[in-house]
């Protein structure tokens, strides 16, 4: 170790690995993982989202899950929660649609209106 810059490089990389434990994420994608959600393929959707987030190296995105959302007919359901913005709920999500949401909504900031169930502030 010769310089502080070197140390900081290690730190930045290490902080990535510990991101889950810090609460400074820009946006949170919440996947509904109730029984009906799982039956309709929520696990696949979640895996796809996680892959997509990892491939695009989106370091400020958190993927998490929640229980039954009560929208059984529209499962799998995901929420995109962003600080200071409206929470968008998408329904009938497939892995394909999930990829599109990551690309359009998370990266470009444009809501994918075709899949939206509700938008709430």
């Amino acid at each position, binding site marked *: *170790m*010769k310089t*502080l810059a070197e140390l900081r490089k290690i730190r930045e990389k*290490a902080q990535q690995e*510990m991101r889950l*434990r810090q609460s400074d994420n820009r946006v949170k994608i919440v996947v509904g993982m*109730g029984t009906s959600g799982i039956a309709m393929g929520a696990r696949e959707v*979640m895996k796809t989202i996680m892959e997509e987030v990892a491939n695009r190296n989106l370091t400020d995105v958190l993927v*998490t899950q929640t229980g039954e959302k009560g929208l059984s007919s529209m499962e799998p359901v995901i929420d995109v929660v962003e600080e200071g913005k409206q929470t968008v709920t998408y329904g009938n999500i497939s892995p394909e649609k999930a990829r599109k949401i990551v690309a359009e909504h998370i990266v470009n900031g444009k809501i994918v209106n075709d899949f939206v169930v509700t938008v709430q502030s």
Partner: protein
Amino acid sequence: MSLKRTDILICCGSGCVSAGSLKIKAKLIDELKKHDISDEINVIETGCMGPCDYGPVMMVYPEGVFYRNVSVDDVEELVDEHLLKGRPLKRLMMQDVDDKVYTKVSEIPFYKKQIKVALANCGYINPDKIEEYIALGGYEAIGKVLSEYSQQDTIDVVTKSGLRGRGGGGFPTGRKWQFCYDQKADYKYVICNADEGDPGAFMDRSILEGDPHRVLEGMMLAAYAIGAQKGYFYIRAEYPLAISRIKKAIVQAHELGLLGENIFGSNFCFDAEVRTGAGAFVCGEETALISSIEGRRGIPNAKPPFPAISGVWTSPTDVNNVETLADLSTIFTKGPDWFAGMGTETSKGTKVFALTGDVKNTGLVEVPMGVTLRELIFEVGGGIPNGKRFKAVQLGGPSGGCLTEDHLDTKIDYESLKAAGAMVGSGGVIVMNEDNCMVNIAKFFLEFTMEESCGKCIPCRVGLKQMYKIMERITSGNGKQGDIEELERLGKNICELSLCGLGQTAPNPVLSTIRYFRHEYESHINDKSCKTKVCLPLMHFFINKDKCIGCGLCSRKCPVSCILGSRDEKYFITQEDCIKCGNCMEVCPVSAISKIAGVGYKPIDDSDSIYG
């Protein structure tokens, strides 16, 4: 690259490990495999999270959910519900008396008054990974100091922070460094004193286990300031986990070039190694510790010369406690004024305490200096369990003293506690409820120091033995008039005539209990009665004939057949033969048997007054 979505931190401090956290970890990994989600979830071992009473404990991020009293049988449900379906398990969360469930750690009262400096990363990072320590700003302080500060600047920062030795002595750290720095010598040493020996103390162990790199960085800062090239961690052999973690930390620091030659491109070259002690209490005393490191028998030497002038192999040596070193990196990153902003006039910063005994939340806590004993015991500690009353608190282990209810509003700082007859000490806090016999407690601590005396000074070696004999006499019902005065005389002499801290403080538990609980000594001696019914020779079992149904179960279970009687006449205990095993009381179906203070037979002065 696969992105993880959840971090599970399992507390693997010694308390939780013995409660089974490693088994839980193994089961968790199995379950994750079974559900095919192993690559989404990190399972991480951390150091002590603090609330040892509720162990095994774990934290689940990103939600920040805190689980307590987790058992292997809970793991399946936990994985199924929380990790798969995202429904945190309410029944494993912390609850208070009104059944309020605490989802978040920050809401739990145990953590509310705490400010964590030395324990900042404990229970949050994986102690086996240097990267996690670096991620939270680790080694930034030493990097900054080596690039920008002179040695004198470094010492000045610590002096300004007001940091004092956390091992018990309370000597200003900056001043110690200055002495060491002022010595002209080719070779100097830094020693981390991790010979934590007080019964009921586990602060240093937990810091070493939970955040070893923080202590290592602190040692490097001390080494740079005084100009040392070599450091020793002196850790007792009964702390195997702490030893292996710090050894691993040293290896990792070497790999990254944080130890060795020309660290951060400066002229500072430093290396550290671990020396294990055999666990003698006296080796916590710095001159005895140095003897032990040199390979000699661990006995103290006369001071002066102080180790700062002539220490290991007669080189100037700086000996700092684990917690002192653990505070340093934060003092440099957050600034000395920040640290000095906490605490009282003379005692700055925070102090780690190990809360044990009759207190609800036993565990490891870090509070700012200057909080009162009441806040520490009743707010952070949650008070006394099972509706019992608070009786006394022993601070500073076997070197400290007992304080009573009257002292609960005493501020915790070096001077206030000393004035009250106790000491901050290394931070062991043993809380006692009304069921404790203070004479017996004092005897316990005296037995400990008597056995740990190295034998060099006669007052300590012989005097403590004599005091112990008197204590034994008192607790066995043979106390005589004048015993209390003799204890006081011996104690005072031992304090004055011993070379090291062990002897100088060993009589404190006896002296402080005489000071505050003299009436208990008197009733042991004069009335042959132990009010708390702890000293077996000074209490007896008694069968209440009004309650007794004459079933005879007690008589059949009595190992010495000293319970006689019949269904009609009911039963009674022949006190002379009773060995006080308590079997009868346990088996009685109608709770007719109780413990009564006093001997119960052969009244001393021919009066029946004490016969239950």
